[in-house]
């Protein structure tokens, strides 16, 4: 099905899907209810974790079954949710059912969402163990609710249900970032995430409304069928035939996607979101929720293909975000934050991939990134768990060679290799390479392509900066601040992991004067190790969906899945995108293909991107490993002044937060004060005056409620008489 939009049209006559697809969201919902019940009945065991792991695993099994049976596009309707009509014509009815749109895109997303959620829940069963009790139940209830919302988002067959899921994951993200709700920074981060997301959500809502206004429906099936008409016009090189309103829909949806997926200018919430427990960071803020924006664009790809402005914007914003986040990541010292910026940067790659028209490459990168980034976070979390909350890469060294840390070390290494796209053997190489190759092949996207290539080198550097500083080299460590926390205040901050656990495991006496000498890092237990082993294997196994079968995009099964979805688009066969080229060839003429210094862009990139990754890695080796004798100091630190103020700016995140503060928050505050004054004196005055009216009427008729029986009887009889009298007068 290489005919893109036409394929979507063909899929418009969707068969009804398997009934059991509805179990995918229902099982996590049941988990949510059960965990909430656990909280009600004050369960103090690990029961909520096992409920969650079991139900999510079942959900994953159902997803796998769905993948093996669903062909093309199928729709499973659970129940009629909203059906209103105020006429029989087009656009005079509003239908949004609780129905699921099952195609390749849904399968791909749900496979990694449910799969990773199961593994991360297992990991969290150990990671959160010191929270046993109400906090444990709360965590897993929100966790299940998140998976349910994500399933609604991904599987929805209309934009309204997607919006429900979209808000649901936002809510869960808020709840889980602010899990340690007595810690001010966590609360601030949760609020920041929620508010920044609101901006994006507003535009998403506007996009959905505009969709209804223009297409008269919010159901994908109908929408895509109508958009196919425009796609034909675009293919014929007549983009001007597409009305501006239709083009604007994609722009609005795009801004919504920027918010959820942390792209410029709305990326600032994601690094702060690392205040949440690490399993949350791994699942929600690395692997799944943040890819919702990518999903939204892939799902509504037919709408983006008809928009002259949306697609190039997506590409450029993605590329710039990738670069900006990578530069910030290079200068951070908190390893979890580095991973957070890396997530923002990689999400930029995915957006750029969508923008340069390789939806297959973007989806493949989402998939590989989900696996390896979750693994990297979990490995960092294991370190954090073991070293009492220590995350500063200047205070840890040689962790990999300590007893009991081998699995974490291997997982970290494999994850890092995937992240930088180590040539040939890693799945991350193939997905990133596809995006780069396609960017260079697109004549109008050369700038994007070069930015992405530069970012690939930076990625390799900051990734291995972490690995070379923390996991290899001389052994040395300082425990984190949680060691000094009081035992009884686990809800008062510092709560990411209990040091009480640490000390009991090692038979130490607790006291106020813990020094480095008393502290022994405790290596991860079986649950964390099992998950890391499975993910390490999965990171390699991710090779199979990409290379397991042949596909024109070199992306095997993922390519096939995307072909059988709403994001189906093949840049080599579809002519739809002529309008983005600098010159418009006549219809039918093959698309001009840019080259990389005279070589075929795709083949050249296989070499060049691998080479760039190796260079970045080598620089990291030279600056952070070679000749390093202590944890605190490496060669990079001596060379840093040479970079001038740039390094300092990067360290301070290019002062973007301060800039937003100055540009948006301050003026808003001033405005708020201004409006407050207007509100107090003008609006309140009017409202008070208006509010006086009903009260006045009330006071006027209040005496009629005297409480006296004869008064009431008189009122009733009198009222009756007055009405009859008036009627009598009117009729005669």
């Amino acid at each position, binding site marked *: 099905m290489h005919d893109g939009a036409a394929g979507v049209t063909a899929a418009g006559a969707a068969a009804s899907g398997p009934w059991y697809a509805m179990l995918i969201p229902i099982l996590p919902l049941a988990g949510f209810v059960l965990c909430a019940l656990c909280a009600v009945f004050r369960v103090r065991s690990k029961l909520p974790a096992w409920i969650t792991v079991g139900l999510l695993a079942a959900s994953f099994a159902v997803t796998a079954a769905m993948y093996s049976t669903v062909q093309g596009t199928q729709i499973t309707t659970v*129940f*009629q*949710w*909203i*059906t*209103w*009509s*105020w006429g029989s014509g087009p656009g005079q009815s509003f239908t949004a059912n609780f129905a699921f749109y099952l195609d390749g895109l849904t399968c791909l997303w749900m496979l990694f969402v449910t799969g990773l959620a199961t593994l991360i829940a297992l990991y969290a069963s150990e990671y959160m163990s010191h929270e046993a009790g109400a906090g444990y139940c709360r965590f897993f209830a929100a966790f299940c609710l998140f998976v349910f919302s994500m399933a609604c988002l991904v599987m929805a067959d209309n934009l309204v249900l997607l919006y429900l899921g979209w808000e649901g994951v936002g809510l869960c993200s808020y709840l889980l970032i602010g899990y340690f709700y007595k810690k001010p920074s966590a609360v601030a981060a949760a609020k920041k995430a929620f508010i920044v997301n609101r901006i994006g959500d507003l535009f998403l809502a506007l996009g959905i409304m505009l969709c209804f206004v223009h297409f008269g429906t919010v159901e994908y099936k109908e929408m895509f069928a109508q958009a196919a008409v425009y796609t034909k016009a675009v293919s014929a090189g007549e983009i001007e035939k597409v009305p501006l309103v239709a083009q604007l829909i994609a722009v609005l949806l795009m801004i919504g996607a920027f918010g959820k997926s942390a792209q410029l200018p709305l990326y600032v919430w994601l690094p702060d979101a690392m205040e949440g427990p690490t399993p949350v960071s791994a699942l929600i803020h690395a692997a799944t929720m943040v890819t919702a924006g990518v999903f939204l664009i892939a799902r509504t790809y037919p709408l983006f293909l008809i928009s002259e402005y949306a697609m190039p914007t997506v590409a450029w914003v993605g590329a710039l975000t990738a670069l900006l986040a990578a530069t910030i990541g290079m200068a951070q010292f908190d390893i979890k934050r580095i991973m957070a910026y890396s997530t923002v940067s990689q999400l930029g790659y995915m957006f750029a991939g969508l923008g340069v028209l390789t939806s297959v490459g973007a989806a493949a990168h989402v998939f590989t990134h989900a696996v390896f980034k979750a693994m990297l976070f979990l490995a960092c979390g294991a370190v954090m768990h073991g070293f009492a909350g220590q995350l500063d890469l200047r205070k840890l060294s040689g962790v990999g060679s300590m007893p009991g840390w081998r699995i974490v070390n291997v997982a970290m290494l494999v994850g890092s290799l995937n992240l930088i796209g180590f040539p040939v053997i890693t799945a991350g190489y193939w997905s990133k390479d596809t995006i780069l190759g396609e960017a260079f092949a697109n004549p109008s996207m050369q700038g994007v392509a070069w930015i992405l290539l530069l970012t690939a080198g930076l990625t390799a550097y900051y990734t291995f900066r972490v690995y070379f500083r923390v996991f290899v080299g001389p052994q040395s460590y300082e425990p984190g601040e949680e060691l000094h926390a009081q035992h009884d205040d686990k809800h008062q901050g510092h709560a990411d992991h209990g040091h009480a656990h640490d000390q009991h495991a090692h038979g130490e006496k607790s006291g106020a004067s813990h020094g480095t000498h008393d502290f022994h890092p405790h290596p991860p237990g079986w649950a964390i190790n099992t998950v890391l082993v499975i993910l390490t294997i999965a990171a390699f196994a991710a090779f199979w969906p990409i290379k397991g079968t042949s596909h024109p995009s070199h992306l095997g099964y993922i390519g096939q899945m995307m072909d059988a979805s709403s994001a189906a688009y093949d840049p080599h066969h579809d002519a739809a995108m002529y309008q983005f080229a600098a010159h418009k060839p006549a219809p039918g003429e093959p698309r001009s293909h840019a080259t990389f210094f005279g070589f075929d862009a795709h083949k050249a990139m296989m070499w060049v991107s691998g080479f760039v990754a190796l260079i970045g890695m080598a620089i990291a080796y030279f600056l952070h490993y070679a000749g390093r004798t202590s944890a605190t100091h490496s060669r990079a630190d001596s060379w840093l002044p040479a970079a001038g103020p740039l390094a300092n700016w990067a360290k301070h995140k290019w002062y973007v937060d301060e800039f937003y503060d100055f540009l948006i928050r301050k003026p808003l505050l001033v405005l708020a004060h201004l409006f407050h004054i207007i509100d107090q004196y003008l609006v309140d005055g009017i409202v008070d005056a208006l*509010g006086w009216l*009903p*009260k006045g*009427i*009330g*006071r006027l*008729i*209040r005496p*009629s*409620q005297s*409480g006296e*029986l004869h*008064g*009431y*009887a008189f*009122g*009733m*009889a*009198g*009222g*009756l008489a*007055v*009405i*009859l009298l008036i*009627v009598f007068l*009117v*009729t005669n």
Partner: protein
Amino acid sequence: MTDRLQFLWPEIALFAATCIVMIVGLSRRYASRKAAALVAGVGLLAATLLSIGFSPDVESLPASAAQQLLPNLVGFAKPLIGIVGLLLLLLAAGTVDRREEEEIVRGVRVFDPLRSNRAEFYSFFLFSLTGLMLCADADDLIWLFLALELTSLPTYIMVVISTAKVRGREAGVKYFFLGALGAATFLYGFALLYGATGTTNLNAIASHFAAHGVSTLGMAGLLLSVIGVCFKIAAVPMHFYTADVYEGAAPQVSAFLAFVPKTAGFLTILLLCATVGWSFGPSAEPLSVVKSSAGGTQLPEVLRLTLWVIAALTMTVGNVLALMQVSVKRILAYSSIAHSGYMLVGVIVGPGDGSFTGSGVSAVLFYLLCYGVMNVGCFAVLAALERAPGRDGEPREIETVTDLRGLCVTHPALGWSMVLCSLSLLGLPPLLGFFGKLPLFTSAIRAGEIPLVIILGINSAVAAYYYLRLAFAPMLEQADESAEPIVQAPFRSRQVAAVVSAGGVVVLSILGNTLMEHSRTAAEYRAAVPSGGSGHSMVDDHRP
């Protein structure tokens, strides 16, 4: 006549349960008296299931057996009555003789068979519901009158025995005398209708009106009937009793009063309006004799205007008086008046084009369901709580809004139930009340009743003032430390009723589409055929 029996299985089941409750309630043994509530519950559940499971197939019945005007009404109204009735029964636990029961349990007092009137309460409860269900079946004025009074008479006594306070007796007496006045009014109206048409059968009346037009006498009968029934729905000018009676009765009985007589009243008004039909247009014919053959989409102008004025006044009076109250029960009483005004808008609009958003009748039926659930929730919270006994040793009822403060912290389940139910009464999306109010607006807009819609909108906004107070007091304010603490009344089932209602407010709004579809079907209206025909054979049966 036997054809009609198949409509009546739920009522028969309820009546049987009522008899058993009365007999069990006269037992000399304490244990069997305690079973009265259980028997009542089983009977009501059976009636509900019967009404859901064995709804007669209207199409296959002979025309004389079914109500022809609103043939599907029964299939929606009875399950609705049964389900809300079950909620109310949960709430009614321990309404009478509570202190005495406690003393018996503690062994302070010996059980005295002559003193206990627990069983009476439950049998009155069931009698009233039986009457309510019979209202839905009514195809005859006499039937309608008997059903209405069967609904109301037990409530007078329920008000009195629900509380040991003098205030309750005062409320009961007021309610009784004013109720008699209301009943006299609509009975007079029924008599005039009989005089105008020579029949008491509703279908025959409708056929008569369709054939000969609505005479002045007939119109007077209709007006008197409708205004008289306004007492049941607590609409202007028959609304005066509401606040005093609701405040005087125990909260669980107030919840009963806000739903049961109101539903009976609206079913009656719908049936009465159906006899003239909504097919009168603004016509050039003289107002004294109007014919439905004009082909418009309205009630006869006189009736429409009367209802219009009543609706506008009712919602306004209810809302502005509620603004000034501090007692939660009085607020809810006035809000109950206001909600009747909202629903009257749907009556004025009529069946419209038959779609859900266009039919005022289906909007009324759906709103009755919404209102039933939300209203029970609010009163259940009041009934489930009390102030701990002070110096005099008597636990006190929750009275003012300040008593609700901080409830979300002290009693989270009840507090949030109050928040959800009052926000739903306000009509805040996405709660049930919003979906209830929406079709009232849309159908009225489509029927062109724009001024009425504006009044409805303004009133909804005014209502926010006191509903938000009810919602914010539990959620945002601090509990008053100095007074006696608020504790839960020793009846778990009341809490269950509150939480189930609050859950219903959320869940039913998600499943609302199905219910709306049911209410749309139930609202199907068949205009009468001008020739008398089938109806007249029925008339003879009833002629005195």
